[in-house]
């Protein structure tokens, strides 16, 4: 507990760095590229097209009346936010060893800045989603506002996973090597390309244990169906995310002391 509080106090002192670094993540990423910011939306759009072809021409998925492109894009955006933030954070912490061995600032700022940059990309993606909603004439209800707490919880859980994995990755590079596979498998265990309704009922409880599953399904529910979120699922997700964040942060801070020695 004391580790967490001291860490947070120190983090607050360097809060400007988190802001500056997050902005530069975005700036640097699209430097010397012609399309620049458009890359932030190409990935979800391309995946949306591929999945639409596969799941409407090759086989079909029950979407509850929602047009499939909209159905899949709405889940792809939070998933890409989650997965790419983690992947970037894990590799980002060891990308510039000089920062770890020659300077001191709270190390969690590096993974967190990637998360913040991912957040910006996510918001860009949401504009595209809004455009598709207009095109398919899906009008949001007030329940769409629930998307805000849902995304906050998702960001919290992403932070937990990013902190834990990046701290381990400094010591064991196996994490970075296993990560692409892990994320790919993870994506198919959550209802991104299919709906939770098509999952057999006896497995659904298991699905709720993964905060990402519950959050993405709720995200789709509040935005596209206009329903209230599944409160139980949201509460479980929030609880797990908070606990994971506390544990991951404490682990990160305790391993931070010797990161410069082992990197």
């Amino acid at each position, binding site marked *: 507990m004391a580790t967490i509080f001291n860490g947070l106090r120190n983090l607050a002192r360097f809060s400007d*760095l988190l802001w500056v670094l997050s902005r530069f993540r975005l700036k640097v990423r699209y430097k010397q590229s012609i399309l620049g910011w458009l890359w932030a939306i190409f990935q979800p759009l391309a995946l949306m097209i591929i999945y639409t072809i596969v799941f409407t021409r090759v086989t079909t998925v029950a979407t509850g009346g929602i047009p499939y492109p909209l159905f899949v894009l709405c889940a792809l955006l939070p998933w890409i936010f989650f997965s790419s933030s983690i992947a970037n954070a894990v590799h980002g912490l060891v990308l510039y060893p000089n920062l770890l061995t020659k300077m001191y600032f709270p190390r969690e700022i590096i993974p967190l800045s990637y998360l913040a940059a991912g957040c910006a990309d996510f918001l860009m993606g949401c504009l595209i989603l809004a455009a598709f909603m207009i095109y398919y004439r899906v009008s949001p209800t007030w329940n769409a506002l629930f998307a805000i707490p849902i995304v906050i919880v998702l960001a919290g859980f992403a932070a937990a996973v990013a902190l834990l994995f990046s701290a381990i990755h400094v*010591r064991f590079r196996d994490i970075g090597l296993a990560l692409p596979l892990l994320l790919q498998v993870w994506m198919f265990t959550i209802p991104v390309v299919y709906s939770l309704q098509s999952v057999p009922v006896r497995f659904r409880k298991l699905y709720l244990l993964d905060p990402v599953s519950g959050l993405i399904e709720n995200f789709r529910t509040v935005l596209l169906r206009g329903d209230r979120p599944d409160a139980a699922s949201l509460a479980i997700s929030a609880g797990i995310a908070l606990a994971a964040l506390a544990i991951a942060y404490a682990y990160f801070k305790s391993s931070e*002391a*010797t990161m410069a*020695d082992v990197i």
Partner: protein
Amino acid sequence: MIDIKVDGVSKQYKLGTSGNSPKRWYSGLVSRRSTPMWALRDVSFQVEQGEALGIVGHNGAGKTTMLRILSSITTPTRGEITVRGRLAALVEVGSGFHPELTGRENIDLHGAMLGMRSSEIRRKLDSIIDFAGVDQYIDVPVKRYSSGMYVRLGFSIAAHLDPDILLLDEVLAVGDFAFQNKCLDRIAELRRAGRTIVFISHDLASVYRLCDRALLLHHGRLVAEGPPRQVIDQYQQMTFAADPESAGLAELQSAAQCSSISFLTPGHSAGVRTGHPMVARLGYRIGQALPGVVFRVSLYWPSGYLCAQLTTDSLQGGVHLEPGEGAVEFHCPALPVVPGLYRVDLSIESNGQEIDARQRCATLNVGPGKPVSGDFHIENSWKLAGVSPEVNVRL
């Protein structure tokens, strides 16, 4: 008031495998354990507010480890550190720069990494750019900068941090002469403002010039502490005691070697002084008969320019020497150079070809003797001559 308190600090590194890398899991099976290395052993000292402390020692003595611990880049294995106030560390300036970002963007980023608030950076931006002297290039990515510009910008940011404690690691070794002077001015300014400075360097002359007190680290242990002059003397003695050993392998290949150098005042135990007699004794070892041998002892100013040279070079073109050991003694009736630290190079030539050259292998520490203004003491006598009363009246 105590700004830094270091209490029984030890730091262990594991060599070979990195830290607790997975290889350690099976290394026990093949009995190839990683060797623990103590970079620091039970080091304790304190730094008062407003003090300038120098830390000297050979490579691998633990200087940089100490600096990393002080700046909380890493934590000690044992012992405790207490630091009071805002601390800025300059370990390889510019290492936190991002090559793709412009100078201006890097100022924001680097300043924030050093713990500056965004508002503080905005306020000091012009002054930082001005100090670094990179105003035409401030909107160019730093990957296009020369290494000098890189370092200047890095130092400039850190110098504007206004820290309570400034840690410096070899920063003055880079940058041109004008910039070095600017840095020294800025450091002096911080000192006048009562800031604490910890300076780690191989440049003994700078330590001598900048610091009130010095520490000597040797193989991770604190072996001396005191006035810079005294500590530097001890460091040099140690370096020379260790030198023949390390040069032992080279003996087979090179036909001749300088084995020792000492400077002394005849009939005195104290060090050499301006205007007093000095004897420089250069010990050598010759492996094979050498014709036309010439010995040189060169003294350099702290700025790096050659100040003076003692040499056996003469019209005869050197002496013939048989294998064995010996020493050359240079006798100077009055040492003309001003008090200060001089770097010493030694060399042996045979028929104009360099056989052994030791660069900066020692330091000559000249103490105050006869009063002197300017660069040299000119040995002289004087009397009033040809002065008539009329002349005095006219003046």
